[in-house]
Structure formats: structure tokens, C-alpha cells
């Protein structure tokens, strides 16, 4: 198992060396989104509207952080991943329009999403579920927050992270999927 590092934004060639099973630490800007933010992104894009964030060559993090307001600042207290499969049906159309280079989450994504990710050179990174305190320690700054009307967990948080990890490369640029391999071994 190799330990690698990646900085964002990342071009297609920057993730080409990642292999399923690698351990990765990520630095740069990540944007969180869960169920409702995905629905709103899909809705805005389908109507030709702009999004408040630019995710091109960046990372979409399936996460709804626990935050606390301290004066004028937001402090992220806990920020582990949420289950990606809930938003999976929206991803095949959404990801190419966002142009993201990495999806961070837990549990993996479906076949169609993987096909789209392979075509666009996007990887799926699994952060250990439940490890919210560990993830929050890697957050250096809250750059912004959008759509707080959706509720604090469902809002889009723009986070600057340093050494976010351990991330396991679960789907690599060749489309190899660790979750799928485990499922196949289990006969499920």
C-alpha cells in the first residue's frame, strides 16, 4: 500500500498515478454537499443557472459538518463523510458539468457514476466513516458557506484542508473499484 499526496486543484494527469488501495492525503479546497445541495445543484444547472462555487479540478466532499459560530468565524468541529449512494442517481449528470477531479465520501458509487468518472478522469476517495474529529483537524479555514437556508448540515461549505486523510483510493482512474471487489468476494 503506497502513501501519496495530492494538491488541489488537480488536472487529469495529476491523478493518473493513483491506484485503488493507495493511501492519500489531500491538500487544497474541498466543497461539501449532501442530499439537498445535490438536488439544488442539479436543478440550477438544468435551468442554465450559475453555481456559487467553482468545482472544476476540485473535490466534492459528501459531508455535512458539525460547525460552531465563534464570533464572525465558523469553526468546523467534526467533518467526516456521509454515504455517497444516496446522491448517486444525480452524479452521472452532475459530475461532468462540475468538472470535479475527486469525489470524497464513504460507501462508494454505482456503475453508471463510475463509467462517467472514468471518462472524465475523476477518482473516488474514501474517508474513514465516523472519523469527524480527525477530518476537522485537517480543516485550516472555512472559506465560505452557501445555501444555509437548507439547514446547517445540508449547506455547501467551502473548506481549506491540509493533509486530509487517511483517504483510501477506492475507485482509481482505470475504474478499478475496491468496494466492488469486496462485494464480489462476498458473493453479493
Amino acid at each position, binding site marked *: 500500500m503506497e502513501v501519496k499526496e495530492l494538491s488541489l486543484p488537480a488536472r487529469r494527469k495529476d491523478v493518473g498515478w493513483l491506484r485503488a488501495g493507495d493511501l492519500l492525503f489531500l491538500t487544497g479546497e474541498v466543497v461539501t454537499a449532501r442530499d439537498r445541495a445535490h438536488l439544488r445543484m442539479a436543478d440550477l444547472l438544468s435551468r442554465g443557472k450559475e453555481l456559487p462555487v467553482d468545482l472544476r479540478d476540485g473535490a466534492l466532499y459528501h459531508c455535512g459538518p458539525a460547525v460552531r459560530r465563534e464570533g464572525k468565524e465558523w469553526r468546523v*468541529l*467534526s467533518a467526516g463523510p*456521509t454515504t455517497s449512494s444516496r446522491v448517486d442517481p444525480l452524479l452521472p449528470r452532475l459530475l461532468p458539468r462540475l468538472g470535479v477531479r475527486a469525489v470524497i465520501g*464513504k460507501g462508494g458509487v454505482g456503475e453508471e457514476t463510475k463509467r462517467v468518472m472514468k471518462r472524465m478522469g475523476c477518482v473516488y476517495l474514501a474517508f474513514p*466513516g465516523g472519523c*469527524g*474529529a480527525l477530518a476537522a483537524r485537517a480543516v485550516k479555514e472555512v472559506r465560505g458557506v452557501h445555501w444555509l437556508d437548507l439547514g446547517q*448540515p445540508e449547506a455547501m461549505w467551502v473548506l481549506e484542508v491540509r493533509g486530509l486523510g487517511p483517504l*483510501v483510493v477506492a475507485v482509481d482512474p482505470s475504474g478499478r473499484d475496491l468496494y466492488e471487489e469486496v462485494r464480489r468476494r*462476498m458473493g453479493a
Partner: protein
Amino acid sequence: MGGSGQRELEEACLELLRRASTGLPSDVKAGLRRALRSERDPVGRVNLRAILENVEVAEERKVPLCQDTGIPLFYFWMDPSGLNPVRAAARAVRRATQEGLLRPNTVHPLSRRNPGDNLGKELPAVKVLPPRGEGVELAVMLKGAGSENVSRLGMLTPAEGERGLVDFVVGTVREAGGRPCPPVIVGVGVGGTASLSMELAQLSLLRPLPEKHREAPFRRLERELEERINRLGLGPMGLGGRTTCLGVKVEYAHTHTASLPVAVNLLCWAARRFRARLRGGELEWR
């Protein structure tokens, strides 16, 4: 109502929420350490090491261990004497949310509007049970959605029997995959009615890991389920390994001669459940 007893009950609820948000009970920590010792899969080991480090970081920084602080479930074993446990729990939940210990999770089921205080219709979930010993015994469990979302109820036929029951529980864990954040604790309710079996499954999760069922047939069933689940190879986070569950707990009720209800309710590895006794104004951890 509203006297010193009521205030003490509210403070006790808040103290349990504080502990549960930022830490794990010792039996779960010991279970995770044991899992790391026996895990051979490299990815499984990475995940278990991250989990153990995360617990330390959360305890040290006094921040939520997991950002999904769940829906708090309260249990009281007490006399329905002058005290109002629902009110104590509700006020404690609101305060814990203000302190940043609970992420505001609850929403209206249709409009999805978030009131921001983790309360709402029928919440917090409170169960009052007959008293056990002196004073008030209380427990809180933070039930995250990842594990709750894969709960399953099977209304099996008596002919399917124990074989069918085992296959149903193992199949539920297999199909849940990485979604409930394994290694999980598996709660199983057998018998009763549809709703009673699910209540029993949830209640079984309060039992500490080393504590096996009191009755031999259910002790055997717990052991068989644990072995079969840990032979799946699903592993921590569903990314492979030998540690899929930390334990299996079964509770049962007699049932209709035509029925065999089986309910499965899981707890993620972040099994945030704490229990204490409130006696003479003092909180004793259990």
C-alpha cells in the same frame, strides 16, 4: 414539577449527551482495539487505526467524534413520580445543540425544514421503563443515520425458522455494505410484533459488548451470527477485512403462532451510548 429533582434530571441528560457526543464507552473502545489486533487486511488496518486515532482526537478536543451526532434516544428506568423525563430530555437536547455538541439534524419529514434545535414532533425519542434499583437509571444513545437507514424488518414464516432468521440477519449486514460504517454492533429483535421486534433490536444495542444473552439458545444464536458476519470479509467501512461486527445482541419476545418477526437495527462503530444512575443528586456511571 420543576423542583430540584427535575433540574438534576435535566443536568444528568445533558451530561450523558456531552459524553456520548465526544467519546465512546470503554467496552466499544476495547472492542475496536481487539479488532485492530486481529485484522490482517491492510486497508482494514488503516481504517481501524484512523478510528482509534479519531476517538483520541475527539476526547482531547472535546468535539463530536462523528459529525453525525444522530438522533438522541433516551431511556429512563424510573417511577413515573412527579418528574418529567420528556421535558428534561428535550431541554438537554436543546442545550447540547447550542453548545455545538449535537449537529442540528432533525427536519420535518416532508418539507425537510430544519428547526435547528434537534427537536420536533414526537422528539426527543424517550422510553420510560419500570424502575431498576434505587433512584433513576438513564441511558442515551446517539443514533446516526448511516446505520439507522439500513435497518430491516422481516416478517418471516415459522417454517423459515432459525435458519431463515440467521440468513436474514447476515444478508442485511452484507447488503448494507459500507453504508452503516462497519465494524458495526448488530441488534436483533426476534418475535413479538413488527413494532415490538424493532424496539427489542434497538434496546439490545444498550447491552455492553462483553455481556452475552442470559439464555443459552440466544447466547448460541448471538455467537453463530457473529461468526457468520465476521466471515463475510466486508471489513471496516466495507473495504475488506475480517472485522465486520464488534458483536451481536439479540432480545426476544413471545410471538403469534403464525409469525416470526425479525428486526435488525445496527449501530455504527461510533457506538455512542452511555448509561448512568442518578441517586441523591449524584450521577454514577455504569
